[in-house]
């Protein structure tokens, strides 16, 4: 476990010192093409909103450091979601991010006897490294490919244990491939995720009988209407370790770059059944600022 974080920290430091040696090293220069840094996902890593992409956050290129911050709210049938976080991009190679998730159980909290409006909270620490390829340039059939790790710490361990989770912390591993197919103005992204998170980790990880990680898939397909405007759809499969009928996630989103630095994303999301309360659909709104 700690090996991964040491590796991520070392990679970040190495990439940073390599970039810092460039004659024209730049902090927050904003050299990326607009929208090619993606938007912040609910876990903090850059992507399309729900699904992670192979993109690196921040608007820096190989000679710089970039940064982004975001805030997201999701209004569901029975629940309210709020999350926010920051990401640092180093040399368009390494992404380090943190996100805090707050999940308001509202009336369901009373029904589950944990208290009306009880909030489940979680911290997510992530690192992503671009292995090869470029989102826009190079061979049109070679995507940008990145690996990521997301360490999640659920701050409501007793509730996670109550619903039958095996642990209050877990680590996801992701492998993503993303490409903008200019000839069709289409962006496609696919990610495989090794995870045992229940509802993203808000209901803990695994189950009492020690269920291990499973391979899940997340994909996005988006159409570029203009330099600044993208419409898309996403799908994300999830395990059902707790036997509560956890379902896959789906969304239809629109992302608009108001300026080169500010992106707003709106979506219709269908998060299925959450803690036996079915049909959790609603609106997703997110704002990101990036340099």
């Amino acid at each position, binding site marked *: 476990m700690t090996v991964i974080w040491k590796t991520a920290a070392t990679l970040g430091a190495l990439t940073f010192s390599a970039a810092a040696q460039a004659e024209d090293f730049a902090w927050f220069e904003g050299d990326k093409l607009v929208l090619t840094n993606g938007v912040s996902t609910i876990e903090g890593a850059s992507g399309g909103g729900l699904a992670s992409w192979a993109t690196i956050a921040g608007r820096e290129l190989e000679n710089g450091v970039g940064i982004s911050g975001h805030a997201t709210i999701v209004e569901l049938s029975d629940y309210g979601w709020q999350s926010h976080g920051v990401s640092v991009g180093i040399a368009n190679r390494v992404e380090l991010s943190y996100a805090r998730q707050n999940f308001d159980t509202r009336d369901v909290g009373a029904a589950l006897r944990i208290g009306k409006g009880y909030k489940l909270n979680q911290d997510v620490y992530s690192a992503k490294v671009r292995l090869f390829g470029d989102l826009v340039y190079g061979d049109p059939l070679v995507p940008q490919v990145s690996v990521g790790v997301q360490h999640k710490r659920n701050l409501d361990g007793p509730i996670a244990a109550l619903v039958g989770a095996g642990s209050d912390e877990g680590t996801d591993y992701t492998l993503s491939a993303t490409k903008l197919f*200019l*000839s069709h103005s289409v962006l496609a992204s696919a990610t495989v995720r090794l995870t045992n998170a229940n509802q993203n980790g808000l209901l803990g990880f695994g189950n009492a009988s020690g269920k291990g990680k499973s391979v899940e898939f997340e994909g996005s397909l988006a159409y570029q209407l203009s330099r600044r405007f993208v419409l898309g759809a996403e799908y994300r499969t999830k395990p059902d370790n707790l036997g509560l009928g956890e379902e896959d996630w789906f969304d239809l989103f629109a992302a608009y770059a108001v300026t080169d630095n500010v992106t707003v994303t709106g979506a219709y999301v269908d998060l299925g059944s959450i803690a036996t309360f079915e049909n959790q659909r609603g609106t997703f709104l997110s704002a990101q600022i990036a340099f």
Partner: protein
Amino acid sequence: MVVSIIAALLMQQVPEENVDWDKEFGVEERVRDPETGEFPVDPYTQSNDNAGAKPFSSDSLAREFGEQEGIRRIADRLVEVSKEDPRISEIFVSHDMVRLKRTLFEQFCYILNAGCDYTGRDMKTAHTDMGLRKADLNALVENLQFVMREQGIAFAAQNRLLSKLAPMSYDLIER
């Protein structure tokens, strides 16, 4: 010691007035071709392969770009805008903009299947030693998008031209 240096300096001949220093130092004077207005370049083999991309098989995009006339406007404007763009203007200093406008036009015209041959150099040769970075390429792409927008080219058509140019990146940027 000091005295001898001063003496040596004093004894130096005053340089003659109209010395051709370029000639003295073996610098070739560049003269524009009276017909084309371009500076001569080192010999190279001409071929459409130098354009760096296969042309579209249909001519529908050529129509969307306004045929040769529209494409020429885009190439001209791209050079004008980029030359004035503080992010990359320095790179264009002392290069032949007359030739660049012509060769860029030919390249776009050839790729868009609007009835031209490309007579310029290949992308690698044309951009060696410029030390181009992805940031420069992004700036040029943004300028091209700006110019195409200015000419009212539909976004999907803009992207189709970019789809032919984007794969050339590894011939243009050093890393």
